[in-house]
Each structure stands twice: as C-alpha cells, then as structure tokens.
C-alpha cells in the first residue's frame, strides 16, 4: 500500500522527467534520422523521420575516405586516449604515493607547484607549448597529441588527497611482515586506490577525447587528426554543405563514444561523484 502511494505521488514528477528526457534525446534522435535522409529533405524538413530512407550518406563516407578519413581519425583518437590515459594514471599514482607516504625530499616545493598549477588556466601555456613542439620539429605527430596532458596536476592532487585520508594500518602491517616496497604498493595500495584511479582515468580520457583547440594547433595533415578535430574540419569544409552527410559522419564519430559511455556508465557515475570534493 505504502509503495503504491509513493509511486502515485511520483507520477507528476515522472511525467516532468519524461518530457525533459525527450528534450534531451531529441538532438540525438534528430541526428540519427537525418543521417538517413536525402539531401533535399535534410536541407529543410520539419518531420523527424525521413520520408525517403537512404543509405547514400553512409556509403558516401566510405567513398570520400581520402578527404575525410573518419576511421583513421577514430584510430588516432583510440591510440591517443589509451596511451595518454595509461601514462597519466601510472605517473600520477606513483607521484602521489611518493608525496603522501614516502616523504620525498622537496615535498613542500612540489606540492606548492601542484597547487599553483591548478589555479593557472591552460591558455597560458598553450601557444608557447605549440612553439616548443614546432622548434623541435614534432608537430603533426602523436607526441604533442599525448604528452602535454601528462603535465596535468589534477590527478596527483586527487590521488594525494585520497591517500591522506586513507589509513596507514594495512601498510604498516605489511611492512612489519617484511613486505618489499613493490609488494606493499601492489598488494595494499593499488586495490585501495582503485576507485580514485578509475576516476582519474575517466577524467583524463574525457579531457583528451574532447580537446579541440590543442590538436587543431599541433596537427596539419588529415591523417593525424583526432575524431573531434576531424568533425570540426568537416563543419568548416566546403564539401559538407550537406546536413545529411554531415550527420552520418557525426553518427559514426559519436556512436563509439556513446557505446563506451553506456558500458562504463557505472564506473563513470562513481568517478564523477568521486571528484565532488566534499
């Protein structure tokens, strides 16, 4: 009885939530259906569903691979996000552990730098960093697309805070049992910081995946673009005044991200909530 009452009370709220949900999904639904429309229908149409269904926009993508190598862009993004995320997570955890537990020499100076860097916005280092990579001739390669993200201090900050709040008892017990440094790290610390490592991985992945300005500075050739940047060049290019074809490309670019997102939904939810500093 009680359950029923609460559900009934929730009906107006459910209706409201559903209306909002439809509004949220509308752009995505529109994107998918528009990608199946013919050129003239896609240019001006008030119905969501295509009157004439066509696959032309998708086959068109495969034939214009030399102009818009979407699959190469997806590959680049996969490589960059994967390698970048792994490096950041490993490097940041090691640094945070060393800072929180091992009393590394110069700890105060390092922590000071990390806090200072958190407060200074990225635009300040953007153009000089571009100039540096230009001077050493590394533009248009994977290196500038990956390495600058490793300087982010957010990760060290997160893991460091987590470790400070984490009790030392287990480590001390392991130490008394004669465990080596690596063993403590592997058997005690890593399992403990898994959630925060996951958080860091998700944040880093999203930051690299979403970045648009930096990749647009350091890449030139079509083959080195990320998918995010590739879509931008399609928007600005002269060969895509065709919204249907544009949406077909956007669908291909977006579906992998949405699928990964849905699969990892649980972890992402946890990790976002982890960043909420209380």
């Amino acid at each position, binding site marked *: 009885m009680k359950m029923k009452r609460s559900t009934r009370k929730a009906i107006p709220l459910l209706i409201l939530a559903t209306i909002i949900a439809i509004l949220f999904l509308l752009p995505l639904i529109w994107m998918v259906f528009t990608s199946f429309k013919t050129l*003239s229908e896609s240019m001006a149409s008030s119905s969501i569903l295509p009157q004439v269904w066509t696959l032309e926009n998708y086959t068109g993508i495969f034939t214009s691979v030399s102009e818009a190598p979407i699959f190469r862009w997806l590959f680049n993004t996969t490589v960059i996000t994967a390698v970048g995320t792994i490096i950041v997570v490993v490097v940041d955890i090691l640094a945070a552990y060393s800072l929180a537990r091992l009393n590394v020499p110069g700890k105060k100076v390092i922590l000071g730098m990390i806090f200072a860097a958190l407060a200074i916005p990225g635009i300040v280092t953007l153009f000089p960093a571009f100039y540096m990579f230009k001077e050493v001739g590394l533009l248009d390669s994977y290196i500038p697309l990956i390495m600058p993200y490793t300087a982010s201090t957010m990760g060290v900050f997160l893991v460091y805070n987590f470790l400070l709040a984490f009790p030392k008892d287990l480590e001390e017990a392991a130490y008394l049992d004669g465990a080596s440094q690596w063993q403590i790290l592997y058997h005690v610390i890593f399992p403990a910081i898994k959630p925060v490592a996951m958080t860091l991985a998700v944040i880093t992945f999203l930051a690299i995946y979403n970045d648009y300005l930096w990749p647009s500075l350091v890449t030139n050739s079509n083959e080195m673009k990320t998918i995010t940047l590739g879509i931008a060049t399609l928007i600005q290019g002269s060969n895509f005044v065709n919204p249907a074809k544009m949406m077909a490309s956007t669908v291909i670019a977006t579906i992998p991200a949405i699928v990964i997102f849905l699969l990892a939904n649980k972890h992402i939810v946890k990790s976002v909530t982890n960043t909420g500093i209380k």
Partner: protein
Amino acid sequence: MKTISKWLALVVTVFLVLAGCSGGGDSADSGKGENGKVQISFINGFTGGDGAYMKKITDAFNASQDKYEVVELQEKDHYTKFKSGEYDLVVIHGNNLETYKQDGLIQDMSSVLEKAGIAETDFHQAGIDTVKLDDTMYAVPLDIHPLTMFYNKEFVQEAPKTYEDLVKINDELQAQSKDLYALGVPSSGLVEFYMLMIAAQNGIDLEKDGYLNFAQPEYAEALMQFHDMVWKDKVSPAGLGLDGEFQTFMKEAQEGKAYQTAVALTGPWFYGGAKEKYGDNLGVAPIPQIGSQLAAYGNSHTIALPANVKDEEKLAGIAEYLKFMYTPENLINWADGGQAPVHLPTLEKVTAEQEKYQIAYQNSQQFDDYVSAPQVYQFGEQIRYMNESVFSKVVTTEKLTTDALMKELEKATEMAKQIAATAPQQ
C-alpha cells in the same frame, strides 16, 4: 610487481613505436632521397576535392623522372606550416603574395621560369597581374577562382546578365511563390568576394599607401546596393547566415518555412555539391553586372619559390617540374578538378571541350574582366573587420543610413592602417 613492470614496459614500447611511425613525410632536408633522386618538397593547401588532381600531375612527373622526385604535401593551414618549416615550392593565394614577399619568405622566380621555358606570354594577363609585384615575377600563376554564378534551369531559362535581369527573375518567382527569390545575399562566409566585386564593378580602388581605404563615400554607396537587394528591391530573403547564398540555392521551398533561390553568386568549389543535386539542370555562367560596369573578382592560386631555396640542383629540378606541369596535357587535370587555369595553351584545350570542363570554361570567360585583390601587406587581416562585422551590418540592418555605414568604414580603415603598419621595415 611483475605486472606493473610489464605494464610500464608495454606503455613505453607502444609509445616508442608510435613516436617512430608518426608524422613522417616531413623531411624537407636538402639531401637526396633513398632512391638517389633529388627531392623537392612541394607544400600546398589542396585538401578539398582538388587535391587528387594536383597529385595526379605530381605522380605523373615522378613516374617520368629518374633524376628528381617531387614530394607533395597537402595540408589544411599549410601557411602556418610553411612559415615554420623549410620547403622548396609553395602554393600561395594571389591576395597573400604581397605579404609573403614583404616577410621575405619568397624570392624572385624569373630565372627558374626562364630555365623551365615558361614565358609571361604563356598566361592570361589577369594571371600575370596577380604575380607581378614591383615588376618582378614572384610566382607562377596557376588558376583564378572568381565569384561564380550558378543558376537553376528549372526556374531560369537564360543566365541573367544585369541587375535588371535579376529583378525580373525575382518578380516572376515571387508571383509563383513567396518563398522563391532570385538570389541570396549571405551575411558571412564569402562576403569578401562580394565586397571586392562591388568595388571593382564601380571602378573603386581600395588601395592607398599600402592599406585598404574603405572610407570612401562612393564605396559606401556601392555597398548600400547589397542592403537594397535585401531591404528595398527584396531580390534576396533577409537574414541569411554563413554561406547563405549557396545554402538557399540548395533548398527546396516549403510554404512559409524555407526559402529557395534560383541563382547563387558563390565560390566555384561548391560546384560538386550543386552538380550532385541538380545534374543537367545546373547552369554555370559569369556573374552579372550589378554595379556600374562589368568586372569579376575572386582569388587565385600561384606557385612561389621559398626564399631559402638556393641549391642549383634543386632549382633545376623545380624548373623541370614546372615545365612538366605547364603543358596542356598535364595541366588539363587541374581544369578537370574544377579550377580555371590561366595558362593559355591549357585554356585552348578547355575551350575545345567546354562541355566537359564546364566550370573551368565558364570561369575562364570572366578573366578579361577580372580585377585582382589590392596588393597590400596582410590583406586578410586588413579586411577582417569588414568581413566579420561591416558586411553583416549592411545586409541585416533594415534602417541603415549611408552615414552610419561611413562610420563603420572609417573604423575598418583605421584597423587596416594599423595592420599595414606591422609590415617589416624595408
């Protein structure tokens, strides 16, 4: 512990492999390639549909050669890369040539052209006008891509030649449906072409002491014509945005919901998209006379020699490559890609097969009336405020007065002056 080191090893290995195989093709060093040929790096911005046609020419050259090899790099924003690297040959737009000359990044090309057997008389005068700075050939002209007129034969039987024709077309279309217009005037996108076209068609010279002098009463009057096209004569719907001239041309009118135009004054690079939609119903013709005289405006591609190229062997290779490119059988590929070459022997071939090279042929018909961009330092920056702000005001402000427009033109001129002053001292 083992797993961690394995992970680290994996990351490092993957990273090294990626670093190794990335980029590439960047080797502009003066040495010889692996095959012992002299390598010539050629950088251009042909990343659109035209890229494949230039590649065809280069590939054919490489196949015909055992002494030289041209390495062609096609990149968007190739200017940024050119400014920061060393290359042997570069494509520069006609309106940028003066900037690169003043920055000292390109050099006199006459001796290379002589070696290649290319003479000024091989080109249409419009092409020569764009590449000759201070009476010196700073580049070899490749093509001119002027403002082009597309028309939809379903609505327009004969290409309009004057503004009166456009008004007549508009009246007929409006009688049919309120959603049909003669043409669309965009508020941004190709507006630089519109603004310089109207200057040329009214015989106004915008250049003064190295900067663009927009603040001329006659120019304000001329620009007001675009305002009147939207608000007085209503030959264009109001409120068209970026690339509006082409987008409206591609739409299908829907009662009260979408406008469609019968004519588009637009860039020739949209030809592929328009042809795909309209097929044989697509007409292409020179732009009509809107101002007081007939004149065409647009931009052009030229091939220039970077200042750092001194090596005799390389210069000989470049001459060889240009000699190869500038033969009708090879350069016709460029016309096939939709560009109108200014090389006269190639033009003859285009004219002979004008159905096949529709867009190239029609655009070559505008060469005699072509007026190129004023040769000033940082042309694009000098005109930026006009492009991004003033033109949009002209076509979106219904109650715009010539006085208000003059104020804007004075501001634009002041900015152009400041940009001109950043030129390196000579």
